[in-house]
């Protein structure tokens, strides 16, 4: 079985993002970029399945400008076998991403697509579910445990009330949540090795997908900031303030 893992290049999660002065988006120039943390968890899970004998090949795919090849190399350094880069400009909407991924799935016939449940830039939480719809496959979203047994995958999902256990028919889409695993660090020898792993480039046109945006971003602005608060000396003062000043208790 092949496992396909889409990986997105996003602003590193430690970076405090700044809105551009002209309100067209957030500042991306000279900002540290990294693999979407949820996608790292997806790569790790794919590698664990392969290492346990459950898969033959792990393919990392990324859509975006040429720098996305670095993100694919990161996945290869972690242990993925090969990469596919789909060259495209910035800001491709999840629906278009799902259509491009469907084209890759049609070419590669993976038995499982593992995705991060959301990207930490646009916070959309859509791509996996959309890909699943387009393929007519089952979806196991927000997975905190995954166990593949033959043609069925047992998925434990993190839901608002706690945990939910479902079974999905393979091939399937599984989107991963934070507690599925702790991704490994790539070792230096593996980073070197990754440079020699195959990385194919495809174009959006070759895949025959229309990626014209459906939504228009009218404006991106800073959220209202909170007014500075005060420090209280002790618990007594705190409770006094909450009772008499804020009047919330």
């Amino acid at each position: 079985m092949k496992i396909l893992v889409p990986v997105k290049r996003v602003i590193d999660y430690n970076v405090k993002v700044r809105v551009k002065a002209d309100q067209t988006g957030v500042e991306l120039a000279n900002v540290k970029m990294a693999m979407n943390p949820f996608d790292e968890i997806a790569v790790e899970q794919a590698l664990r399945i392969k290492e346990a004998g459950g898969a033959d090949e792990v393919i990392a795919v990324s859509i975006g400008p040429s720098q996305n090849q670095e993100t694919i190399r990161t996945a290869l350094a972690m242990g993925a076998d090969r990469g596919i880069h789909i060259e495209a400009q910035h800001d491709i909407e999840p629906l278009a991403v799902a259509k491009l991924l469907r084209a890759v799935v049609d070419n590669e016939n993976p038995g499982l697509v593992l995705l991060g449940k959301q990207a930490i830039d646009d916070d959309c939480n859509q791509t996996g579910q959309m890909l699943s719809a387009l393929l007519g496959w089952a979806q196991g979203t927000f997975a905190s445990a995954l166990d593949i047994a033959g043609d069925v995958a047992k998925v434990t999902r993190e839901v608002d009330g706690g945990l939910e256990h479902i079974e999905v028919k393979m091939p399937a889409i599984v989107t991963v949540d934070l507690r599925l695993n702790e991704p490994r660090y790539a070792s230096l020898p593996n980073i070197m090795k990754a440079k020699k792993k195959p990385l194919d480039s495809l174009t959006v046109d070759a895949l025959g997908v229309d990626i014209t945006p459906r939504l228009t971003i009218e404006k991106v602005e800073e959220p209202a900031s909170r007014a500075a608060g005060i420090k209280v000396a002790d618990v007594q003062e705190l409770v006094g303030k909450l009772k008499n000043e804020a009047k919330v208790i």
Partner: protein
Amino acid sequence: MSILILTEHDNGQLNPATLNSVTAAGEIGGDVHLLVAGDPSGAVAKQAATISGVSKILIADDAAFANGLAENIAPLITGLASSYSHLLAPATTSGKNIMPRVAALLDVMQISDIVAVLDASTFKRPIYAGNALSTVSSKESIKVITVRGTAFEAANAEGGSAAIETVSGGEDAGLSSYVKSELSSSERPELTSASIVVSGGRGMQDGANFTMLEKVADKLGAAVGASRAAVDAGFVPNDYQVGQTGKVVAPDLYIAVGISGAIQHLAGMKDSKVIVAINKDEEAPIFQVADYGLVADLFDAVPKLEQELG
């Protein structure tokens, strides 16, 4: 224009998150209908019918809808979609699971997690863990939207008298099956709708120490939450998590105990009316958003707080 909202429920009780989506729908304008898909759906439909501002309830009663499986519910919604300009659902784990599947089947782009309605096709939504607000407009013929509950008041659950209509459909797609749930049960209020939330972070050091927070919570009638660090460390279950990828809360009072205040956590609570931070690290970023900060050892301050609350 008419708007269809996917009702969230457990086959017995309507989830109050639905009420916030009704308010968002009211701001968009037009007839507001609620879809109750479940097994059985009758009791929930009755509760839904009294919500102010709702004119019609559609009931879809089928075993295939009993457990909210997206593969079964999405085709039901797309089958009804042609009569609607907007399809809404609360941005809960259920709505987030189902609606993108609906959007892709309809070949439209979803707008996730809206926090404001500017007009029928223009909405605000947070990006980058709420560090930026994006205004997006959509020309899609059907707008598929999930609604952040804390950004809209709850509609009045009483006062309405919507007509109830049964819709046909209901087929098991045969792709997925429900096995079981492990739901946390608690006597305390539900995290996302509680008016006071007491949350603990890595500083709690141990799951057993959350008992201290629970005692404070019980004096205040509060819910208990946690940061990702506390959940990752296994102190408390995943459903306690407040943050970018957990729950978003906006209570009247949020008390953060032993939480440093990573941006991912702030994303889930910074719209709270009053924020209190108790942390021994004076430099902790949580103090930058706190109205009242107490630099203290939580193991000293929390028991005192409980005492002081009488």
